């Protein structure tokens, strides 16, 4: 199966084949010249893209999503199989549906209308605030460097660019090798004019020569990835090109004392386990730590123990994929540290699954939760939820979202205190990994970041 998709008329590149489980992937030999030619072609397709009506683009997007949501969707099934084979995630249920669900119905159109005001400015000059006509246009070419940790997390950026008439060159991750090509191909089937403005080209991440050529043609680069990867990429992006980086982030949970009791905490634990184990805890919305408030009927250590039982149960439905060597090494090191702290009489306890790195719950009141562990939740006791911001403020803070269980006013108060530390979303336990489309990923929407407004004043 081809991992790439090029605009019509571009000479097919030489290809090599890679075995991925039972799949045989056809990958292109990407040279700087080829990448540069494709980027130029895409830029040239912009006028035709601008000539399309927004409604036509939205219809193509919504039809494509509708098809991908069908249980028999061939494209989604193929993409999911490649994702499973690549990450080792043997998820018995669809790994894509939790994220695709956010797009169900006519959500994309609603989303775009909520983001762009006046919406008609996408099709031509339209009366703006104060009466002056305004026109909204996206960049002339956006390069999207996709992640492999969580599928489809990039979809809103890509769709946003199309709605704002931005041709897109997409580099998929080796860990999710087919989704981009299949999705873009689905789109192009529904609106053939899009085929001229979209390309999927998997080059080797960090290939400086290719990236330099491609970024020279771009007006925007949207990059997902690790600190190392995005830092290296950023050095090749010319200063005039807008760079949107989605780096490593995580989510934490907070449980008020009101919920620390029989019949209340158990469902929270079950939901938290799902938040932690979905996508093996590799997502930017994966739950990595819970701050449990003392003073309820359950003490934080008991809650850690109950969470461990919930992790064991959830792990049956969400079994582990392949742990990276470095992540596994870090996780083992922290398991040992917590076990030793418990032996030394520190406020620590370790709970683990029976096999390998199935799941881990570390209870520790003193050590800040380490990041980047495999299927691990860190539970810390706090005397009051007011302590949570100071716990998170120490060290490098990459908190993205908060799962909260407790009285609503306390949640609002906590969210307000965490907002300056980077919080972009407060949600219920169990829904962390399924953000609504209307949540601006990273705290601000792709439209806000990339749309350029033209205003007529005479």
């Amino acid at each position: 199966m081809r991992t790439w998709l090029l605009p019509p008329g571009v000479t097919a590149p030489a290809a090599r084949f890679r075995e991925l489980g039972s799949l045989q992937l056809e990958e292109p030999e990407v040279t700087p010249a080829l990448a540069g030619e494709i980027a130029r072609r895409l830029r040239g397709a912009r006028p035709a893209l601008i000539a399309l009506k927004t409604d036509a683009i939205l219809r193509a997007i919504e039809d494509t999503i509708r098809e991908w949501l069908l249980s028999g969707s061939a494209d989604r099934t193929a993409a999911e199989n490649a994702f499973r084979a690549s990450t080792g995630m043997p998820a018995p249920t669809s790994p894509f549906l939790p994220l695709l669900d956010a797009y169900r119905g006519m959500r994309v159109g609603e989303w775009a209308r909520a983001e762009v005001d006046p919406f008609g400015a996408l099709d031509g000059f339209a009366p703006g605030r104060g009466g002056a006509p305004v026109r909204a246009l996206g960049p002339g070419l956006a390069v999207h460097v996709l992640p492999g940790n969580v599928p489809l997390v990039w979809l809103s950026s890509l769709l946003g660019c199309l709605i704002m008439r931005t041709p897109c060159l997409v580099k998929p991750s080796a860990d999710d090798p087919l989704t981009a090509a299949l999705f873009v191909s689905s789109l192009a089937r529904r609106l053939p004019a899009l085929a001229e403005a979209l390309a999927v080209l998997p080059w080797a991440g960090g290939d400086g020569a290719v990236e330099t050529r491609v970024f020279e043609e771009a007006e925007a680069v949207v990059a997902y990835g690790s600190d190392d990867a995005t830092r290296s990429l950023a050095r090749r992006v010319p200063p005039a090109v807008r760079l949107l980086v989605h780096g490593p982030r995580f989510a934490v949970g907070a449980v008020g004392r009101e919920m620390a009791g029989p019949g209340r905490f158990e469902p929270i634990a079950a939901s938290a386990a799902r938040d932690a184990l979905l996508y093996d805890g590799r997502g930017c919305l994966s739950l990595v730590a819970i701050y449990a408030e003392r003073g309820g009927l359950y003490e934080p250590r008991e809650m850690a123990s109950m969470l461990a039982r919930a992790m064991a149960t959830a792990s049956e439905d969400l079994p582990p994929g392949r742990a990276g060597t470095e992540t596994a090494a870090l996780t083992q090191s922290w398991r040992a540290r917590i076990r030793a702290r418990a032996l030394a009489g520190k406020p620590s306890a370790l709970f683990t699954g029976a096999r390998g790195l199935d799941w881990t719950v570390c209870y520790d009141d003193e050590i800040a939760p380490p990041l980047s562990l495999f299927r691990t939740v860190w539970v810390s006791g706090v005397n009051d939820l007011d302590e949570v911001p100071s716990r998170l403020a120490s060290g490098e803070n990459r908190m993205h979202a908060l799962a909260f269980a407790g009285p609503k006013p306390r949640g609002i108060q906590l969210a307000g205190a965490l907002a300056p530390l980077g919080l972009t979303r407060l949600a219920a336990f169990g829904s962390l990994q399924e953000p609504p489309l209307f949540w601006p990923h990273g705290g601000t929407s792709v439209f806000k970041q990339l749309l350029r407004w033209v205003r007529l004043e005479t």
Partner: protein
Amino acid sequence: MLRYISSPEAEPFDSIALDVFARQYAENAAYRRWCDAIGLDPALVRTIEEIPAVPAAVFKELDLVCGTPAVEFRTSGTTGPGQGRHLAPSLDSYRASALAHFRRCVLPEGWKMRALMLAPPPDLAPSSSLSRMLAWVLEECAEPGSGWYVSAGGLERERLAGALLDAQHGGVPVLLAGTTAAFFAFLDYCDDGGLRIALPGGSRLMDTGGMKGCGIEALPSLGEFQAGFYRRVRETLGIPEARCVNEYGMTELFSQFYDAVLVDKDRPRVKIGPSWTRTFVIDPVTLEPAREGELGLLRHLDLANVGSVMAVLTEDLGRASGDGFVLHGRPRGAEARGCGLAFQGLAESA
């Protein structure tokens, strides 16, 4: 144990290691608690592969020593909480092991050399195991004119440059030993001043500590880093790559591992340990032996750790290669440790 280090062929390693394990289980209370906590029945340990290794992180929490500790070394990590402590009842096995393997891998000709140490002396860094080892090297392997070039004020760049120019003009080969970060700082100093030195043939360099503290923003692979570093050493100091030896050591182990570059030119960057050590590569998911050639965690058995705990599971990744291993480095995101930060900390505190 000292007898074994001086004539290791006298007894088979495995039987000694199993004896040491039995003794450490009996005499090292923290080790015994660790073994019990992981459900280890010491009676079932019949091969050296079954000897339970203590993860390096545990040295931050437990006093892993047989009997009463007389010496204490501390790891230099500053980014993670806590420091690891290696306690031991005596320095004897450390001294014997460190000197013997240093001579084999860094001074295989049996020479004594003028040695210039780019590390703080033990009185400035009493908890640094590297400083202790280099002090022994100065005592046993050095000629007049040797000395320390890191003081309370940090690296003494100017004085070091003078000493190297003296050696160049006098035709005296030198041994430079210290942290990689200190060498980086000195190379930067040379670059800034346009200083180029051509050290006499036979000169050599031993560095340790890796790339942490070297001010490198985007970390390359360890191999790329080392190649670039040694190229700079050749261009700036005139020591060829074939005489640059990287040491891999850790506070928790009294034995060290060195590049084989001076003793086996066919595998210059394979790390070799002394015959009283064994290294295994462990699958980090299962903690079982990794498949041949696979990347995994390094687990060492070190008989020089006779007074503490012999089996240590490191946080370092590597691949087996013959009787040695190729170091891949520490997982990104793991706590930064290593001697490089000791140098950096000292310089910053000045």
